[in-house]
């Protein structure tokens, strides 16, 4: 009830639409993966999902940000039930991120992940970290859903505290085929990344490769 009302409010503020037709409900576990440019990103995916799917989903987020301050902690732990991953390498060794995410999947949750690993400074799509590949190979039954987030980098860009009320958009794509047995990691990640760029229809640019 509380979550439903908040999701409605978020949709109202960000202009994102609830579109149940976009997300099939066949009961399979799924990982939503999206481009990342704003703190609002997982919040709007969460808000755009139909009730049943929203109850199942757990965003994967940075522990350092979401555990600072009581409000953020309450939002992340209680409301969004986030899987919090520490950024600090020492802590990361103590509880490996892939295992945390795997536990959540096995417990019956869906996940929201951002394979770029961090928010894009420019609004362009950066390169993908290998986590998505490992998740997909370790959990072969999981459905990978590409998600394109439009305009969120303009509503709340990195480094700003206040959002401006522009209209954002969440587009869910067709599921991505799981990595084939002999598919190299880089090829799979390229394919996953291309799925998001294809959803964007030219409105999302690719970050130029590092020399």
């Amino acid at each position, binding site marked *: 009830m509380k979550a439903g009302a908040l999701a409605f409010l978020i949709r109202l503020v960000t*202009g994102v639409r609830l579109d149940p037709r976009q997300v099939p409900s066949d009961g399979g576990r799924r990982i939503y993966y999206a481009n990342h440019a704003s703190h609002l990103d997982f919040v709007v995916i969460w808000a755009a999902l139909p009730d049943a799917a929203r109850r199942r989903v757990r965003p994967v987020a940075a522990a350092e940000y979401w555990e600072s301050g009581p409000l953020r902690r309450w939002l992340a732990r209680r409301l969004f039930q986030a899987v919090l991953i520490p950024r600090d390498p020492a802590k990361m060794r103590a509880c490996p991120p892939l295992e945390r995410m795997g536990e959540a999947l096995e417990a019956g949750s869906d996940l929201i992940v951002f394979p770029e690993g961090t928010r894009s400074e420019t609004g362009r799509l950066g390169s993908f970290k290998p986590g998505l590949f490992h998740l997909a190979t370790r959990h072969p039954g999981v459905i990978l859903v590409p998600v394109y987030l439009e305009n969120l980098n303009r509503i709340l*860009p990195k480094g700003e505290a206040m959002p*401006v*009320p522009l*209209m954002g958009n969440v587009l869910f794509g067709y599921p991505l085929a799981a990595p084939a047995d002999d598919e190299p990691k880089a090829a799979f990640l390229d394919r996953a990344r291309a799925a998001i760029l294809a959803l964007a229809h030219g409105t999302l640019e690719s970050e130029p490769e590092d020399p």
Partner: protein
Amino acid sequence: MNDPELLALVGGVLALLCLATVITRLLARRKGPGPVIDNLRQRVNAWWWMVAVFSVSLALGRNGVFGFYLILSFLALREFVTLSPTPRGDHRTLMWVFFIILPLHYLFAWAPWYGMFLIWIPVYAFVFIPVRSALAGDTERFLERSARLQWGVLTCVYFLSHLPMLLYLPIDGYEGQNAKLLFFAVLVTQISDVMQYVFGKWLGRRPIAPTVSPGKTVEGFLYGGAAAVAIGTGLWWATPFGPSGAAAMAAVLVLAGFLGGLVMSAVKRSLGTKDWGRGIPGHGGVLDRLDSLLFAAPVFFHLTGYYFGTNMHLTYTQPEWMRQILHFWTTP
């Protein structure tokens, strides 16, 4: 809303909507389902909602009307800015525009402080917008970005806010009845849109500006416009004008509405889209419905003022409470 003439106007529009709903049902039954019928049904349904919200705002009186147009301006500006690419450097400027400039403009309009209402956006906001963006340090396409934001604020906020200002026009012998003047302006402009669309689909042959808006035709404009002027003339009893005055003002609304729609279409094309948004099913965005009112509102407001020789400057000077707020730091 206790004005029987205003109730008659609302009743008339509701009757018209009932007729449109019945015709849509009959068409759907005869022709079967299809995209055109679906769009028509969506449009008629949306009209019920729009008329309901508009009428309720009038029933709530002055605060309701100003609140309604404040929200409309907000939604329209939101659609406008969403479609105009704004880089990071404009983020703070946008915050000022949405959360300070827009509400203050409506505060001055509602107060009313007529002088400030007139210049708040064309002077202060227009000075502020480029200054704030320059301070943010991004010089790429600077003139274009500033001009675009200024245009958005001018049309979506400044022009549109002239509609609720009609409530304040002092007209001898028409005191307390200005809601009907507002109703007249909105009704004639919107009916003109609908009639031009209907006649354009029916008889339209020669497009007026095919590259800008292929749906607008000479025949649609002439016949649809004439129909709207006829309806406006028929409503002269609700306005402060006589029959010929009402006809002339309806013609002004039709012409300004047409030109506003044309210009906003051109803006839309230059931004590379067909609809402003998806807020109103069947119509597109809020701006797709408001575009014709944007130019019609200030022109109708001022022409009506000249017609009755009113002087808003002298009638609505700076309110006392605002003067006190502005003076509090200078008094010892």
